């Protein structure tokens, strides 16, 4: 399970739309299954079918997370024409078993779909994604 705020969700959708028609990618830092920060990062491949987080930007983001005492809780990317489910390439290249992989489908641009998965040892398990409305005390 991963909790994200509605403004984080909106930031991810905006990033995916800004990078369209290429895939967008981002890292989410947080703790205890809650995202606290979104790092919208460049896709070094600038491709509609492939993404690689630009390596120096990746290192900077991960170093900052370490310095803040946050964990990498989520890895986000968009699918511009396919469903929000890990592709074969997503599974083959998944190297962060402790992170939740979030995929946003823009196949229907008016109705983006965001889903979340664990990808471990070639196995995909969907996990619950909880979207919290910011500003509501709870």
């Amino acid at each position, binding site marked *: 399970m991963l909790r994200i705020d509605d403004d984080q969700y909106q930031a991810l959708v905006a990033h995916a739309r800004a990078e369209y028609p290429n895939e967008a*990618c981002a890292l989410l830092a947080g703790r205890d299954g809650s995202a606290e920060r979104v790092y919208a990062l460049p896709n070094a*491949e600038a491709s509609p079918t492939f993404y*690689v*987080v630009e390596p120096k930007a990746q*290192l900077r983001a991960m170093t900052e997370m370490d310095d803040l005492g946050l964990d990498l809780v989520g890895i986000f990317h968009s699918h511009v024409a396919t469903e929000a*489910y890990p592709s074969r*390439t997503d599974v083959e*290249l998944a190297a*962060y078993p*402790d992170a939740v992989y979030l995929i946003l489908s823009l196949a229907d641009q008016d109705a983006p779909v965001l889903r979340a998965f664990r990808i471990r040892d070639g196995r995909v398990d969907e996990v619950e994604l909880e979207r919290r409305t910011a500003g509501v005390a709870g």
Partner: protein
Amino acid sequence: MAVEVRIPTILRKHTGGEKAVPADGDTVRDLLGDLDRRYPGIAGQLLTEDGSLHRFVNVYVNDEDVRFLGALDAKLADGDVVAILPAVAGGG
């Protein structure tokens, strides 16, 4: 040259859970060889069969991507910090 190597979570099974380990080498190639002597099997996760750096593994020397420093021929100095990170990559 004695350097500190930061090990990503996914490779810590090779290092007994250690996040950072010491290793020696004048170049990144030598360093990875030394690392593999200390932690057998680890280089196989980082290098391709022809001995080049795997496309989806990032190695940094003092925060600089080694692809811009001569890749495996990148020179090392005492006290350098080498970080290894699996690339964040995929596509659908």
